[in-house]
């Protein structure tokens, strides 16, 4: 298993003011799976993503990602873990404004020390002719595609996507989801966090959270739908 969570909990604060963001989380995700983590605002889905990506630490339980037990890893090890195991795609894109599109993808190569070819990756996301542009010269959808290319440039086996279509219109969002689904087909584990139930229809598996607990974990109701059938 690529991602293992066992009895994971995450609490903020102490005593009567403590907030439980996650509780009793057991989750296993393998390579090639496209998993959507679904839940309303405050359900703990982003916290779950941050714990898996070692941006946050679990208060209890075991978190093992890519063979690395990150609950007991040192701070130095966690940097290496993020560089070599997981790659993030953010709702707000978070591209570097001072770098060109190609250089933003190159950043992913430099951060992970991979051997990926930025131009090839840009072509794979349909931006082969925009390598010399700067982020502010692209549309939202194009920027998110650059972010995906950057994440792919690391060569890491796990993609963690936090509301990747949140800033995009429907048509563009669908294109992004297609790209991400493609990566699952290429053997990566793709974890998408969203509050949009419609998006969950395209998943291989939907993990539904409520108040920090998993209330559902299985294929989407009615089976997995192709991206083209989605509508929101």
């Amino acid at each position, binding site marked *: 298993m690529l991602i293992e969570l066992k009895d994971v909990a995450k609490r903020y604060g102490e005593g009567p003011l403590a907030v439980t963001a996650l509780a009793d989380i057991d989750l296993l995700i393998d390579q090639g799976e496209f998993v959507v983590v679904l839940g309303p605002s405050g359900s703990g889905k*982003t916290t779950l993503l941050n714990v898996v990506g070692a941006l946050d630490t679990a208060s209890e339980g075991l978190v093992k990602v890519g063979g690395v037990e990150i609950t007991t890893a040192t701070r130095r090890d966690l940097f290496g873990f993020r560089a070599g195991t997981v790659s993030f795609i*953010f709702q*707000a894109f*978070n591209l570097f*404004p001072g770098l060109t599109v190609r250089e933003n993808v*190159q950043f992913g190569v430099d*951060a992970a020390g991979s051997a990926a070819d930025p131009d090839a990756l840009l072509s794979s996301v349909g931006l082969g002719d925009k390598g010399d542009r700067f982020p502010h010269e692209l549309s939202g959808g194009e920027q998110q595609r650059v972010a995906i290319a950057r994440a792919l440039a690391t060569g890491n086996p796990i993609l963690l996507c936090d509301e990747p279509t949140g800033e995009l219109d429907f048509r563009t969002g669908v294109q992004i989801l297609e790209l991400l689904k493609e990566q699952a087909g290429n053997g990566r584990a793709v974890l998408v966090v969203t509050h949009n139930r419609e998006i969950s229809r395209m998943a291989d598996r939907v993990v539904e959270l409520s108040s920090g607990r998993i209330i559902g974990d299985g294929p989407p109701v009615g089976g997995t739908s192709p991206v083209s059938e989605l509508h929101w």
Partner: protein
Amino acid sequence: MGTFPLLIRWSWRDLRTHWIKVVAIALVIAIGTGGYAGLASTTKWRQASYDLSYRRLAMYDLRVDLATSSVVEEGTLADIAAGLPGAAAIVAMEERLIVPTQVDVSTPTGSVLVRGEITGSDFSGGGPAVNSYVSFTGRLLTEEDDGHPVVMVERSFAKFYEMEDTGTLAVSGSRELEFVGQASTPEYFTVAPEGETSMTEATFAALFTTLETAQQLAEEPGRVNNLVLTLTDEADRAGVAVQLNDSLASLPVGTTVSTRDDNLSYTSLTTDIDQDQALFNALAILLLAGAVGAAFNLIHRLTEQQRREVGIGMALGVRPRVLAVRPLLVSAEIAVLGVAFGVGVGLLIANAMAAVFTDMIPLPVWVTDFQIVVFARVAAIGLAIPFLASVIPVWRAVRVTPIQAIKPDLTGRGTIVGLHRRTVRNTFAVMPLRNLRRTPRRTLLTVLSLGAALTVLVGFLGIMDSAYGAIDTAEQQATGAFPERIVVKLDTFHLTESPGVVAIGRAESVASAEPTLRLAGSIHSAAGEIDVFVELADLTNGMWRPTLTAGTWSDEPGVLLAEKAAADLGVTVGDTVTLRHPRRGGLDSYTFVESELPVLATHPHPVRGVVYMDLGHADIFNLRGVTNAVNLLPQAGATTSDVQRELFALEQVASVQSVTAVTEAVRGAFDQILGIVQVMVVAVLLLALLIAFNAAAINLDARAREHATMFAFGVKVRTALRIAVTESLLIGIMATILGVAGGLVMVWWMTQDLLAETLPDFGLNVVLRAETVALVAVMGVLAVAVAPLFTARRMRRMDVPGTLRLVE
């Protein structure tokens, strides 16, 4: 709950969150405003102190000197002055006898033998009434001391050699005198004897005594050779001088009438203020500009960070002028702190400089009042700048639609100046330069602010380097091939073959001796006139000859001018000038005549009045076979002290000095000024560090999301720090280049323009030593580069998930 109390509470939270930045920006303002106030205050109270001191001790308006070795009966000069048509303008006058001498104040621990002069004045009736004295230790002389072998020692000299309040000393001819105190008089507020520069207290001992005592020492009973007068404030000084000059022509001896403005000690202090004021103003304005620019930039960026919240407020229907209160409150806090710190910094700088000046210059009155007007002026600037810096971003925030202000800048819109599109293969290496170029206004303002501060530093240090450079040139000119050369000045003219002069050459400690002549005069051309000291020496076969920059001496009579003199007179090698000089008439009488002489060559001595001629042309002065100074080389193993001690007993010897004595004394005097320079160096270093730290801290806030993204991708904190340090380094390099260039311009202006007007007798070249450039580079580059390291802790403790979360 009203909006205003909420805004106050919110602003208090802002202050607590950003207190380090607020304090740091306030300190930036404080250094700029306080530095300006401190420097400007110095000028104010120096002016007041000099005016009061000269008035209290009745500095002369006019002075009459008889030609060298000439004396007249007591009362002669006073009678002539009293008989002038403009005599009604004379408030007081004093006849004096001034006698050159050697002074021995050696102690068991050290030998001190210097040249000097004894000034005898009338102390009867509480006098003298002109150029009176102030006592610093011991007592003042009174008329009871008439005829007794007692003197007062000039304060600066006595302080330099840490003399006791009272004791004994010896003068030429091994005559012992009792000194009863240390005193000062207007002509010696800074020691600048004739033929020398100012600040030469280490090599010149002025002794003050009664007129009768001076006459006994000089063996000239009832005679005088000097007159000083004060005039009413409304008097036409130049007119009275002309009358005096005309009346004195009837005397059988040569006379010179001069005003207080011809007195080097007086002018070097009074014009010093004008020169210093212009210099301090320029440097203080630069410092203020650097600080103001930096503060403006930093406050502007701090306020920009609140732009989104202003937009949200507008979307909720709050009026813009109410929303402006929060950022303006932060500015108010910075302004108040800045002014408060500024007063402290200003007082610190003013007091530090006051300590240096009061130690250097022995005035009877020092006025160092707190200059409320000066401080109020800069306080107004210190208060205004933070508000102005906030107004612009707040105005920008309220003039757009709320949604434009609210929407986060996810793409970093803005001018990206000159960003090339050629891909680099190491994005970490290219990020620093890209970051600077994508915010060109901010980068430019930071570079200019730092550059202004560094310009001040280079200006201060460059002036010192140029001054030391001139001293070095003078020293090289004086030493020539024999740095051990000694110059013996005689009390008057003597025949070269006279026993007194021969005895000098035959002294045990002397290896060789050459007679020379040293005479005062003036040179004029169509372009102007300058006072000069002509030194005649054997330029062909003698032990010393000047270094020349153009031309050469020849068998023809002619003058070798300083380069500055030639430039000021508008002449070059081959041109003719008119030399006004003394010419011996009878045995002891001299008159001033004029001779047309060609300019044979120029030399690099920084004092423009230094003129050389070959001794073979002494006929022009009717002084062939006559000498008043001797160049010596000591025996191997003999020191200057040995020669001084051996010649001290000879009555005809007025002084025995190493050729480097004067330059060493001036160098020592400049070393005292280093205290002021050190204060400015610390102030500039602090300012540069504060500017750089603030810029780094605000950058950290502005780029938080980028850093968080990097960390999310596993990039280490030290990599992000390295990028920030590199960015700072680039700013430091640009600022240093700007600072050195600006500083050079400043030094050029000060040495070639300002000094040319206020101290025309000195020619300084622009010199910037390698050590100075290295110091500026260290401060401007390294100190600025390390500033981001102070944000390392904040970077390490960043809430990465919280920063990455899109705030909706």
